[in-house]
């Protein structure tokens, strides 16, 4: 056959090979074939991950805004009667008519019985206030003839919202078992576990007779594949409608082939039929007493999303956050800095002298100190972000930003990755998977690294601390906090400006429609906030910490060893040079250390690149720090700490003091002055200093063309801006 319709291959692969799932669980550990598979499915932001955490005891990130889960996550759960289960948390989807990559993850799994994660039972998670809309997905899943339990989450809000449910009636109509839970408060979780153990007794009868959508068409479909579930066949037929334009008219037996627009019409008809069924069911099964519900939410919404006050409040919140980050972190940061300085000098004094002792005191301890010092600031940043997410305010920000984004050619769907980018660009770029339109997704991927990630924070904090005076404007506004806020805004501004330009260059014709879920306002749960802060801080310290530790070791070697006469005979060369001078023993020792550093491997490397970076106001040591921080931006501070420990004066102990004391031998001025500091801040605001971001861009775009373009553009732009800033300010 010259043209074989892709559908045939799919049907063969996915449906005709439904043998017994033997040897599915031969992997090590808890995933054994005795375990049952539970899949958590539901609309975005209904609390699937919270239910997942409650069942598994894991601490996956949860938030009160949609689109956090973009890949499946697996956990393990012990159920009553000694039943063990693998619990799968899937990305949120509104229906089984997938239109984005993350939604397709759900359908791919449910259509493939041979998948080792194919569920034995599905927990369809819904939330009490949006039951009607959530039930659309339930009826679709139910029609796949997989045992499905309806989990109604957030029941603690039932009374508050004046909602009552007739559970026996709903169970009867929906042909399922219902579990009422509040995953935030841990209510109903044990009952849910008990219901799961009875999954084999749950009816798999469909909610909707698929034939009723179009009798002739579906009968033909069933005749062609008599042994298959009709709704599964329908899903396979329509699965790619939103992704690729397949030619669906070439099959010899074309009695059930239809054009894309015909298929979409049938999908719409299906949705209407399902909502008719849901409406009839809820008419009796759910009662809402509007008089018991308060209208606090709508009043707050109109204020927080107001076209003027909404932005004023948002900027005020940002302002408070950045002021607090600097104010509250000062004392713990000074404490950590002093502790590491003391540790370094103690190890140098107490341990037996030698290369390894020097490596510990001059390489490892300053390197680690260079990262741990930022724990307070990172923790405070994530504390604020978590509170904003948990409270439901972040969704209002997304809504607010949608209005701005549209002017720059993007939809609000791009704002979720851009906001996630404040933590790290990697998960943010992955979060673009819920953007249906490829060009819009590509633009979002390319501009997301401009948003200020947590790795930039250490660089900003140390430079701001050195070059921006710790003074207040009008007695309230801390200048350092204000500078930090401006840097965050510059990053975000650059991201949307680049999106605007890319939008013109790539000619984006059709845009993604953005539907944002407005979750209820909730008092942030201490446990969720604490977990998020601890997890993010841990990821920052241990993720970057290992690289910084390794780089510190390598840098120490490169700074402590060098080729040729100049390095090996530094002392005698300097002695002959300073024969007639009256240098003290201490000054002479420092001069030798400095001379050796300049002639070490790292010094030679640094001096080679110095002509390129000196127009930006940097010396060779900063140049080395910029190169090494390409591995991860945080390495910048650790690198300087190591270099200054090897070649610096023993009077200056803390990292900040060492950096502040650095003098340019040519000009006699401080290395970290206002001009070079601003130049460095702007360089790090715009430069693509992250190898991992390039790797994830390559992965998500499936091409080296885009990450390389990203690297070249961002680095050259950063260089030009830093150059202009230094030349103007010097």
């Amino acid at each position, binding site marked *: 056959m010259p043209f074989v319709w892709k559908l045939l291959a799919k049907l063969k692969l996915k449906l005709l090979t439904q043998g017994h799932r033997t040897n599915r669980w031969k*992997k090590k550990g808890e*995933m054994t074939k005795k375990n049952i598979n539970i899949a958590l499915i539901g609309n975005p932001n209904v609390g699937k991950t919270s239910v997942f955490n409650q069942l598994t005891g*894991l*601490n*996956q*990130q949860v938030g009160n805004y949609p689109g956090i889960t973009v*890949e499946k*996550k*697996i956990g393990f759960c012990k159920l009553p009667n000694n039943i063990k289960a693998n619990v799968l948390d899937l990305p949120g989807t509104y229906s089984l008519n997938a239109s984005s990559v993350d939604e397709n993850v759900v359908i791919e799994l449910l259509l493939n019985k041979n998948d*080792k*994660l194919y569920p034995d039972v599905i927990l369809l998670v819904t939330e009490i206030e949006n039951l009607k809309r959530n039930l659309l997905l339930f009826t679709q899943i139910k029609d796949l003839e997989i045992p499905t339990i309806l989990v109604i989450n957030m029941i603690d809000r039932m009374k508050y919202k004046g909602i009552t449910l007739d559970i026996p009636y709903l169970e009867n109509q929906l042909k399922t078992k219902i579990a009422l839970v509040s995953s935030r408060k841990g209510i109903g979780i044990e009952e849910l576990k008990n219901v799961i153990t009875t999954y084999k007794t749950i009816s798999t009868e469909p909610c909707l007779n698929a034939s009723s959508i179009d009798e002739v068409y579906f009968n033909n479909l069933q005749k062609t594949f008599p042994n298959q579930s009709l709704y599964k066949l329908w899903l396979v037929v329509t699965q790619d409608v939103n992704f690729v334009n397949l030619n669906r008219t070439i099959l010899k037996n074309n009695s059930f082939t239809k054009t894309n627009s015909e298929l979409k019409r049938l999908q719409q008809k299906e949705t209407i039929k399902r909502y008719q069924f849901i409406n009839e069911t809820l008419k009796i099964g759910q009662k809402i007493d509007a008089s018991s519900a308060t209208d606090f939410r709508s009043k707050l919404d109109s204020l927080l999303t107001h076209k003027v006050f909404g932005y004023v409040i948002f900027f005020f919140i940002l302002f408070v956050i950045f002021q607090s980050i600097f104010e509250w972190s000062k004392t713990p940061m000074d404490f950590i800095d002093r502790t590491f300085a003391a540790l370094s000098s103690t190890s140098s004094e107490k341990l*037996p002298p*030698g*290369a*390894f*002792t*020097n*490596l510990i005191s001059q390489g490892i301890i300053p390197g680690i100190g260079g990262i741990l010092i930022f724990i307070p600031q990172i923790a405070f940043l994530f504390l604020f972000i978590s509170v904003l997410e948990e409270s439901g305010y972040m969704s209002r920000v997304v809504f607010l930003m949608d209005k701005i984004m549209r002017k720059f050619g993007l939809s609000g769907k791009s704002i979720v990755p851009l906001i996630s980018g404040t*933590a*790290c*660009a*990697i*998960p943010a770029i*992955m979060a673009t998977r819920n953007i249906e339109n490829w060009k819009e997704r590509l633009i979002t991927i390319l501009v997301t690294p401009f948003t200020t990630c947590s*790795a930039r924070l250490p660089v900003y904090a140390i430079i701001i601390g050195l070059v921006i005076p710790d003074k207040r404007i009008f007695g309230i506004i801390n200048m350092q906090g204000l500078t930090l806020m401006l840097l965050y805004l510059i990053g975000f501004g650059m991201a949307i400006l680049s999106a605007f330009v890319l939008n013109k260059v790539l000619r984006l014709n059709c845009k993604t429609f953005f539907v944002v879920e407005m979750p209820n306002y909730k008092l942030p749960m201490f446990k969720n906030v604490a977990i998020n802060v601890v*997890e*993010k801080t841990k*990821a*920052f310290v241990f*993720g*970057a910490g*290992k*690289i910084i*530790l*390794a*780089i510190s*070791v*390598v840098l120490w*070697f490169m700074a402590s060893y060098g080729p040729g006469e100049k390095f090996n005979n530094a002392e005698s060369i300097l002695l002959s040079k300073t024969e007639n001078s009256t240098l003290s023993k201490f000054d002479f020792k420092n001069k030798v250390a400095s001379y050796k550093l300049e002639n070490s491997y790292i010094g030679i490397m640094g001096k080679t690149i110095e002509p390129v970076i000196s127009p930006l106001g940097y010396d060779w040591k900063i140049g080395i720090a910029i190169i090494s921080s390409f*591995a*991860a931006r*945080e390495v910048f501070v650790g690198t300087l700490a190591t270099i200054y420990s090897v070649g610096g004066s023993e009077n200056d102990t803390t990292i900040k003091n060492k950096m502040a004391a650095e003098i340019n031998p040519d000009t006699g001025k401080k290395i970290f002055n206002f001009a070079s500091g601003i130049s460095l801040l702007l360089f790090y605001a715009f430069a693509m200093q*992250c*190898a*991992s*971001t390039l790797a*994830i861009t390559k992965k998500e775009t499936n091409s080296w063309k885009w990450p390389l373009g990203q690297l070249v553009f961002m680095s050259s732009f950063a260089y030009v801006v830093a150059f202009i800033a230094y030349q103007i300010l010097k």
Partner: protein
Amino acid sequence: MIQEILAFVTLGIALAFLFKKFFFKKKKTDKNCGSDDCACH
């Protein structure tokens, strides 16, 4: 001498770690990926 050996062994470990981190692709397992920034640093 022992200090020199220890220092060079540490250097070897550091270089091996960095080489593995940046030049070897981590094989994706079914159990991976959560909120840990997916090896971002």
